């Protein structure tokens, strides 16, 4: 009997020891990212039947389990991906918001200064200093366009860089998950009752981190491994096989990088299939905001320079010669698709600036029709032949069936705009009558400031810019608000997830005391068992 008591004491002592270890482990990892609180599963040992009934045999620890809720983790991960997408988009937009915020160095003051100099020209058209001042302020305005355009270009190359580093990260996560899948499933196969908790935590942490980059779905398999799908269900890890992402030059527009899927081959992914997380946010920013903002800025530059040139060319300079272009107006950019046939060529020229939109266009030849799509609203126009003029852009070329081209009428205009005249005598302030006091054309040039020149004569240059500013402001504001909401949701789901998996140190302190006392009590049991045995031994003396 005494041996039985001693044995019961020993099981209790062991259980308390395991309890203390697990509690210590919890305390040690209280702030380890991804750690799930562990606890021991303790059951009574199998009892023994005697004549008087079942006699307990003490206790045993059957499992160390982690407190992990799949549902809560899923909610947390999904909030993580949503919040990161919104905040990445918001951070990028904030940069444009800041670029446009600079009211003293923005585009508006340069426009105002330029037109003030044209007004000054009209009041003293023969004065060399006044003419020089007008050329200088034209240069200042061009510089402002270029500066804003360059900063937008920097954001664009920043997006390229980030896409590359995130896709590399995703690929690395994929192979880490595959390895963990392998180890975990082998471990579970060997001992189904005792899961490798810490390794499972590690894998779940990678899933969370992956969600920060791109929306990730997990299908837990029976063998304990995870099948992982990113974006719109693209398989990233299946069992112990990992696939990956990388960036490739866009087949449509070689100036930008696109995300591609790597299994046996490399496939360029449609941006729509990459949702959530920083990648989703970056692509959304580029497709929904940056492209259009850069095009709109370019549209203002192109329309301004073209309409100003047209009026300038209607006038006459100091020498009585007909005016020439004051600005060099950049033309549209044309890109052939990567898989075009060899002889395919396409040219695009701006014929009517005021008819321009801020959209890009796709020209595709299907063997019968030239299909020209305005990409901002997917308006399709089909023509049996080229040349054709669409929205102020004349399009001509030789295409084989299946060839496509991308036309960006104004994407690069803000950075490529320049002043064409350096000789102050070439400023055409006069009409054909001539005379150094002749200011007829200067007055007409000054009138352009408030004239409806943009978007089919509905808007002045400055009004178009104000509209752009309001659009950027509204979008940034909307994203900031959404970002705060997404962060609140994230905090909420994190707290819920942590309420199950997180470590509470007070709780662990209580457990420490509990297992310490259990240990002491178990020791006492063993001490008494030993004393009982001593009683027996002393009988023989």
């Amino acid at each position, binding site marked *: 009997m005494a041996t039985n008591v001693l044995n019961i004491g020993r099981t209790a002592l062991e259980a308390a020891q395991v309890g203390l270890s697990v509690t210590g482990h919890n305390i040690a990892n209280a702030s380890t990212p991804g750690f799930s609180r562990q606890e021991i599963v303790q059951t009574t040992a199998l009892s023994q039947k005697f004549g008087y009934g079942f006699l307990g045999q003490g206790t045993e620890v059957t499992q160390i389990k982690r407190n992990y809720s799949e549902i809560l983790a899923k909610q947390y991960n999904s909030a993580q991906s949503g919040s990161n997408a919104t905040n990445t988009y918001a951070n990028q937009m904030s940069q444009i918001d800041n670029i446009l915020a600079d009211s003293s160095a923005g585009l508006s003051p340069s426009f105002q200064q330029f037109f003030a100099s044209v007004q000054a020209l009209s009041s003293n058209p023969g004065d060399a200093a006044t003419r020089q001042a007008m050329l200088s302020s034209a240069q200042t305005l061009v510089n402002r366009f270029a500066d804003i355009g360059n900063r937008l270009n920097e954001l664009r190359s920043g997006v390229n860089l980030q896409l590359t580093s995130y896709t590399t990260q995703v690929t690395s996560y994929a192979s880490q998950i595959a390895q963990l899948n392998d180890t975990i499933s082998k471990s579970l196969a060997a001992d189904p009752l005792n899961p490798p908790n810490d390794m499972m935590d590690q894998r779940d942490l990678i899933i969370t981190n992956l969600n920060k980059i791109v929306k990730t779905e997990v299908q837990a398999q029976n063998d304990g491994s995870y099948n992982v799908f990113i974006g719109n269900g693209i398989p990233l890890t299946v069992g112990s096989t990992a696939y990956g992402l990388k960036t490739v030059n866009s087949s449509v527009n070689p100036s930008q990088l696109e995300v591609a899927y790597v299994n046996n081959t490399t496939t360029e992914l449609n941006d729509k299939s990459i949702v959530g997380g920083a990648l989703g946010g970056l692509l959304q920013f580029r497709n929904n905001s940056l492209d259009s903002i850069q095009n709109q800025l370019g549209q203002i530059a192109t329309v301004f320079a073209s309409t100003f040139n047209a009026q300038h060319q209607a006038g006459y300079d100091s020498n009585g010669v007909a005016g020439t272009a004051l600005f060099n107006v950049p033309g549209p950019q044309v890109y052939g698709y990567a898989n075009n046939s060899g002889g395919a060529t396409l040219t695009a020229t701006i014929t009517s600036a005021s008819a321009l939109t801020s959209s890009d266009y796709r020209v595709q030849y299907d063997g019968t029709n030239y299909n020209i799509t305005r990409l901002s609203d997917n308006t399709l126009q089909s023509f049996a032949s080229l040349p054709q003029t669409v929205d102020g852009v004349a399009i001509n070329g030789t295409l084989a069936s299946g060839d496509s081209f991308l036309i960006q009428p104004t994407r690069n205009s803000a950075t490529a705009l320049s002043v064409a005249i350096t000789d102050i005598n070439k400023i055409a302030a006069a009409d054909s009558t001539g005379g150094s006091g002749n200011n007829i054309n200067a007055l007409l040039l000054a009138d352009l400031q408030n004239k409806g020149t943009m978007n089919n004569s509905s808007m002045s240059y400055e009004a178009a810019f104000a509209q752009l500013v309001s659009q950027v402001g509204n979008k940034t504001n909307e994203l900031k608000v959404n970002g705060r909401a997404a962060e609140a949701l994230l905090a909420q789901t994190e707290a819920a997830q942590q309420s199950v998996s997180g470590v509470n140190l*007070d709780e662990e302190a209580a457990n420490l005391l509990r297992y310490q006392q259990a240990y002491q009590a178990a020791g006492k049991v063993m001490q008494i068992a030993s004393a009982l045995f001593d009683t027996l031994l002393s009988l023989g003396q």
Partner: protein
Amino acid sequence: MRISTNTLYQTAITKISTIQAEQSKLQQQIASEKRVLTPSDDPIAASRALSISSSQSQNAQFAKNRQIANTSLTGLDVSLGSITELLVTSRTTLVGNAGTLSANEKSILSTNLKASLQTLIGFANTKDATGNYMYAGYQSDTVPFTATATGATYNGDSNQQQLQVDSQRKMVVNVPGDSVFQAGGNDVFSIYSDLITILDNPASTDTDVTNGVATALANMDTAISNVSNIRSSIGTRLNEIDALNDSGSSRELQYAQALSELVDLDYAQAISDLSQRKVVLEAAQQSFIQITGLSLFNYIR
């Protein structure tokens, strides 16, 4: 709900950093005196501010143009005043010489008229403050009148130079010389030179001279009335500029006020918000210390 220790810390840190971000924003607003720091702070106000500041800058430019117009027109007014005075003096002289004149009187009158003609040509070739000829039309760098035996020839043109003096108003700010000195075929210089020719001609009879003076007087009256008309129209334009200046100033005030309401900071509000955030921050920090200070481990000895 079970609260993990991490959540406890995280919540406190998030709260504190949120308040600090708000403080920093207020601080920036106070330092820049602006409520709207970036377009996203108030997109509607930001874009309206742009269009108002554009109107404001144009309004300022029109005020400058009006100043230039005012200078030109005032210069013209003064110059035309001198011309009128000269013509009126000559007219008075002519009236005083309306009867039969002795040889000596003819000679004195001729000398007088020659001097006046020179002065008049001088007046007609006046330059303005910027060095441009006032009465040359567009040919502002060409001497408008050169003296000839029969008066003077006009080298300028009949074009009127306009200036944008308000958003919807272009105003003529010059007077072409032909309209002042040669209006309706009545050449002021010829009035003088024709009479001088008669006076200087020994063959002229008394009747020739009397008729000559009478013709000159009649033409002089026409010329004076023409110049007066021009002066009066310049006076009207100067009055209009005054009126436009008044409305321009009141618009300037209105723009400045609108801009201020759109983007400027309400200091009292901002300072009060800032001190309120300070109280909240202190409370958050205090409660953080209190809560995290409460640990069961403090009691395990």
